[in-house]
């Protein structure tokens, strides 16, 4: 395996470790668990000083992880944050990827976003075709018996719950 040697880095390390007995004497470049997925060429040591692409113009709100200083040179423009879910997402991006609250807040935003999606559809005069969207045609064609049983059980459970909730109190 090729070993990359950066003269400047070697000098810096040499200064740091010159008084440490035995430093580096057992180093083995063959012992590299990242091989062959990583081609060691010293690029790690460029840190953030690499040639970057021009910045994509920012015409929409783009959240970025607080584990990096800003946005990346390119980003997706699909579905920018909006509405209540957008406000919740904004809150989520105040904490790092290491925090459970970051992800749980995004999960909450996703749930709110689904309701917003139905409202948006209705506003645009679209009544969602749930049967088509859920792919029930495929279930009917290839899995009819189990599918009908599942729907029947769910309908019975819903009917029982509704019946129980709307029962007349004696």
């Amino acid at each position, binding site marked *: 395996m090729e070993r990359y040697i950066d003269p400047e880095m070697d000098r810096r390390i040499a200064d740091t470790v010159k008084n440490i007995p035995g430093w580096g004497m057992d180093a083995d470049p063959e012992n590299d668990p990242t091989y062959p997925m990583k081609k060691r060429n010293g690029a790690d040591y460029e840190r953030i000083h690499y040639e*970057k692409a021009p910045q994509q113009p920012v015409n929409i709100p783009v959240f970025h992880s607080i584990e990096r200083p800003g946005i990346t*040179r390119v980003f997706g*423009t699909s579905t920018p944050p909006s509405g209540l879910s957008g406000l919740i997402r904004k809150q989520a991006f105040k904490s790092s990827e*290491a925090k459970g609250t970051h992800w749980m807040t995004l999960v909450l935003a996703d749930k709110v976003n689904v309701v917003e999606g139905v409202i948006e559809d209705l506003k645009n005069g679209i009544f969602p075709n*749930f049967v088509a969207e859920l*792919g029930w045609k495929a279930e009917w064609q290839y899995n009819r018996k189990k599918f009908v049983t599942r729907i029947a059980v769910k309908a019975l459970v819903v009917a029982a719950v509704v019946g129980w909730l709307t029962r007349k109190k004696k």
Partner: protein
Amino acid sequence: MLAMNFRGPFRIRADRNRPEPKIEHPYDAIVQVTRSLICGSDLHLYHGLVPDTRVGMTFGHEFTGVVVEVGSGVQKLKVGDHVLVPFNIACGSCPFCKQELYGNCHESNPEATASAGFFGYAHIAGGYDGGQAEYVRVPYADVGPTLIPEGMDIEDAVMLTDVTPTGYQAAEMGGIQQGDTVVVFGAGPIGIMAARCAWLFGAGRVIVIDHLEYRLEFARNYAFCEAYNFKEMDDPVVFLKKATDWLGADVCIDAVGCDAVGSTIQDIIGKQLLMEAGNATAFHWAINSVKKGGIVSVVGVYGPPWNLAPLGSLMNKGITVRANQASVKRLLPKLIEHVMAGRLNPKGLISHRIPLEDISDAYRMFSAKLDGMIKPLLIPPRAVTA
């Protein structure tokens, strides 16, 4: 244009009124999709297991297409080129890309540092619309997109955008030595391809574990491997120990990820309560089934923030875990060679060819494992003859 439109968990529609993408950056290209695939990891989005999956998004990270427009800074790619597009969006110049970790680019995903940008994989992967559409915006067009070699079948080409490299890298990360016993958890397309590729590294025995009989049968024929149904065993870990002289496999590959089955507790905690990122049973079994000092290779996709895993066994057994998103661009030259020489037959995994208009049914069939589905290919209406 026609494109897939996510409306919520288990709800998607083929939407004819989606706006066409436009050039947003000098290094962008716009590609007219000729073929795309639904990936097993798309099902994690479809099932609502991935945070920041926004309503209105178009999924799809496995596609081929014809370049119809390029940005002012694109130098290599030309209008009219027919390309296969790796699922990773990679800048080619950050420290990670320079070390060929193209699946870990640092300049393509503002929203999470743990992941690079991927097409159509929610905002956790940069918020890019994907290839289950007629047109796609492709950033860093000179880096990832690769001309489809003359004579290569378009279905082989589209299978080189993710499935084949991911399966291959799963085996590669296993550090397989000649004669090794390799166990692959999951007989989905990636698991089957990993099993097939394990032989390329000199495996002596390859075992696939799943619970769907039709997929096990397919794996036996396609990947020349042993295949067993864990639903017919008391305990798959004990079965595998017994099958490997009570030592464990040399290499275990997790090709399942967060949508595993096999543990009721993990189903409840991970899939119903969303208190962990889905069900990590395959990873759990991999750690327990590998030998001491063995290697566990993970290509199954897990979402944040965490999963239940037996870390004590990991440490006590001295296991090495190797995991990553496939570095498609790094692997393409070798894999193209394998395909052109007939050693690998990626298109053999495609079981269904479905018009893009029927995408809701295609997702349902793939999710519910209907009609013996292994891998569904989507064909956009204007690309049928491409």
